[in-house]
C-alpha cells in the first residue's frame, strides 16, 4: 500500500494545478462565496411618482433607496422603471391608496420590501396610510420563473465551455491538432470550424431548455424573441471562446474539466442566479461584473418575464459584446500560437529564413 501512497504523492506533486485546486481553491472559494452568499438585501432601488411623491419619499427608510422622485410622472413611468430594471419598487401617489409596484423577478428584494413595508405600517400604527401592493411579472413569486431563464444560461456555460474545451483538447491528445496545423487552413478557419458545431448544438440546447422550462414550469416568454436571440448569441460566443481559451491552457481532458469547473462555479454563485448581486460585499461584487452569465441573466429575465425592450438592455448586451470580443481575441491569439508556433515571431529572428515559393 505504501508504494501506491508514495507513487500517488509523487504524481500529485508534479500536477501543480491539481494541488492548487485542492489546497488554495477551497480557501479562496470560502472567502469569496462567504462574502457573496447573502440573501439579505440592504438596498432596494425605489422610484416614487405622483403628486405626493416628495412626502412619500421622505417617509421611506432603508432598505428603500429612493433613486428617483418625480411628482409629475404617473403609473406608466413607474412601470417602465421596473420593466427596465432601474428600480425594484415603485410607489405611485396621488390616489386614495398609494400604489406600491414591485418587480417580482427580484424575489429576495420583494420579500425584503414586503417585510419593511409591514414594519413601517406597524410602527406608524393607525396613522399609516393603507397601500395597495401589486407584484408585477411574477405575481406568485414563483422561484422557477426566476430560475429557469438563469439556469438556461448556466447550462450553456457548462455545455459551451466544457464541451468546446474537451473538443479541442481531444485533438491535442490524439495528435490531430498538429495535423490541422500543417493543413492549408488559416488559424481562424480552424477556430471557426471547431466552434460552429458547438454553437449550433448549444443554440438548440438553449431553445430546448427555454421551451421545456416554459412547458414544465409555466415560465412566460413575454418579450421580443429577437432581443433574446441577440443576447443569447453574444453569450454563446463568450462561453465558446472561454472553452477554446481553457483548451489552450490545458494539456489533457482532466485539466480542461478542472478549469471549466473553476469557471462554472463562480457563475453559479456570483452571477445573480441565486444571490442578488446587489447584496454581495463590494469586495467580491466586481467579480460578478466580469461574468458573462450576470449579463445574460439580466437579458433573459428581462425579455422573458418583463418584456424589457432592447433600448433598456443595451448595457448588458454591449458588455456581453465587449466580453465576446475580448475572450475570442484572447482565444484566437492563444490558439493561433498552438497551431503555428512561429507565426508572428519569425520576423523578429533575422537569422532564420523560411523559404516557401508560391
Amino acid at each position, binding site marked *: 500500500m505504501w508504494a501506491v501512497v508514495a507513487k500517488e504523492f509523487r504524481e500529485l506533486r508534479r500536477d501543480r494545478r491539481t494541488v492548487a485546486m485542492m489546497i488554495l481553491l477551497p480557501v479562496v472559494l470560502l472567502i469569496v462565496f462567504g462574502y457573496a452568499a447573502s440573501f439579505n438585501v440592504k438596498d432596494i432601488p425605489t422610484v416614487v411618482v405622483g403628486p405626493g411623491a416628495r412626502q412619500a419619499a421622505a417617509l421611506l427608510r432603508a432598505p428603500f433607496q429612493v433613486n428617483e422622485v418625480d411628482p409629475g410622472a404617473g403609473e406608466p413611468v413607474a412601470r417602465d422603471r421596473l420593466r427596465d430594471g432601474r428600480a425594484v419598487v415603485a410607489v405611485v401617489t396621488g390616489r386614495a391608496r398609494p400604489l406600491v409596484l414591485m418587480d417580482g423577478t427580484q424575489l429576495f428584494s420583494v420579500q425584503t420590501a414586503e417585510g419593511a413595508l409591514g414594519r413601517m405600517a406597524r410602527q406608524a400604527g393607525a396613522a399609516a396610510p393603507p397601500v395597495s401592493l401589486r407584484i408585477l411579472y411574477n405575481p406568485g413569486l414563483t422561484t422557477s420563473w426566476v430560475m429557469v431563464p438563469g439556469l438556461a444560461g448556466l447550462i450553456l456555460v457548462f455545455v459551451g465551455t466544457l464541451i468546446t474545451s474537451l473538443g479541442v483538447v481531444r485533438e491535442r491528445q*490524439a*495528435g*490531430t491538432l*498538429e*495535423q490541422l*496545423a*500543417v*493543413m*492549408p*487552413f488559416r488559424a481562424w478557419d480552424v477556430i471557426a470550424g471547431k466552434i460552429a458545431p458547438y454553437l449550433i448544438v448549444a443554440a438548440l440546447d438553449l431553445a430546448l431548455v427555454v421551451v421545456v422550462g416554459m412547458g414544465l414550469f409555466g415560465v412566460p416568454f413575454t418579450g421580443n424573441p429577437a432581443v433574446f436571440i441577440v443576447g443569447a448569441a453574444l453569450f454563446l460566443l463568450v462561453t465558446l471562446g472561454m472553452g477554446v481559451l481553457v483548451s489552450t491552457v490545458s494539456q489533457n481532458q482532466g485539466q480542461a474539466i478542472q478549469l471549466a469547473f473553476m469557471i462554472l462555479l463562480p457563475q453559479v454563485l456570483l452571477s445573480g442566479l441565486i444571490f442578488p448581486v446587489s447584496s454581495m460585499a463590494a469586495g467580491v461584487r466586481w467579480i460578478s461584473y466580469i461574468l458573462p452569465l450576470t449579463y445574460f441573466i439580466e437579458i433573459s429575465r428581462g425579455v422573458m418575464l418583463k418584456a424589457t425592450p432592447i433600448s433598456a438592455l443595451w448595457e448588458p448586451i454591449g458588455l456581453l459584446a465587449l466580453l465576446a470580443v475580448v475572450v475570442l481575441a484572447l482565444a484566437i491569439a492563444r490558439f493561433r500560437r498552438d497551431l*503555428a*508556433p*512561429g507565426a508572428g*515571431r*519569425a520576423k523578429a*529572428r533575422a*537569422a*532564420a*529564413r*523560411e*523559404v*516557401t*515559393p*508560391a
Partner: protein
Amino acid sequence: MSWGLADVRVRRGRVLALDGVTVPVGRSGVTVVVGGDGAGKSTCLQALVGLVEPESGTVRRPPKERVGYVPATCGIYPDLTVAENIEFAALAYGVGRGERDRRAARILGRTGLDQALRRLGGQLSGGMQRKLAVGLALLHSPELLVLDEPTTGVDPVSRAELWRLISGAAAGGTAVAVATAYVNEAARGERVVLLESGRMLASGSPEEILRAVPGAVGVVPGAAGGVPGAAGTAAGAGTAAARPARWWRRGPAWRVWAPDGELPEGAEPAEPDFDDAVMIAALAHEAGGAR
C-alpha cells in the same frame, strides 16, 4: 529546386534541440533522418513543415497545400471512419470528389484498407493506422511528403507495404523526408542524415556514409559473455579494456571498431555495413571526434 533544412538551429526552452542541422530533401528521392530517442528527428521534421520555428538557418518548403505530413502520433481521427478520414483530408486540401475517389481507391487498394472503409480510425491496428495516415498524406499528391517514424511499432509485412507506398511516391516525383529509429531503414534512402543529441553525425548517400567509415571493423564470432577483451578471450585484455566502448554485439557475434585500423587479436576483418557505419559514427561522436 530541392527542399530541406540548411544549418538550422532550433531551441526548445533552454535545450538546443537542433544544432546546425542540414537535411536536403531532393525531388523524387527519399531522405532518411536516422537517430535514437531524443536525437532530434521529430524536431527536424517539425521545422521542415513549419511546426517549430528555427532560431537560425534556412528552411525551404513548398506552400502548405503542397505538403503532406504524418506526425509521430499518426494524426488520423480515431473517432472518424477510414472513409470519413479520407473525406476530411480531401476537403482540407481541396481535392475534388472524382479525383479523391480515384486516388483513394488506388491508395486503399495498395494498403489493403479498402476492406476497412467503415471502421473507425481508432479501431484499426497500429500498422493499418500508419498506412491510413501515409495514404491521407499522399491523397493530394504533395510535392513534399514528411513522415515522422511511420514504421515504428509496425509488423514487418506492414512495414514493407509502407515502404512500397513511400518509394512509389518518391518515384512519382514527390520529395520525401522520413524519420526512423531503425538503422536498417536508412539504407532505403537516397540521402541519409544521422542525428545524435541534435547534432549531425553524418550525412550523404548510404554509400558515401559507408565509404567514410574510418579505421577498420572486425568481428569476433560466437563469443559468449561480456566484451571479448574484458573477458580476456579473443582480444588482448589490455587493448579491449582500454576501449570497451568500441565493442558492440550483433546477434551472436561481437563487432569491434579500430579507429587506427589495427584490429585487436582474434578479430576477423569485416566489411562495414550500414549498421556498423551508424554505430561507428555514434562512437566517434562520443569519443569527441566528429565523424
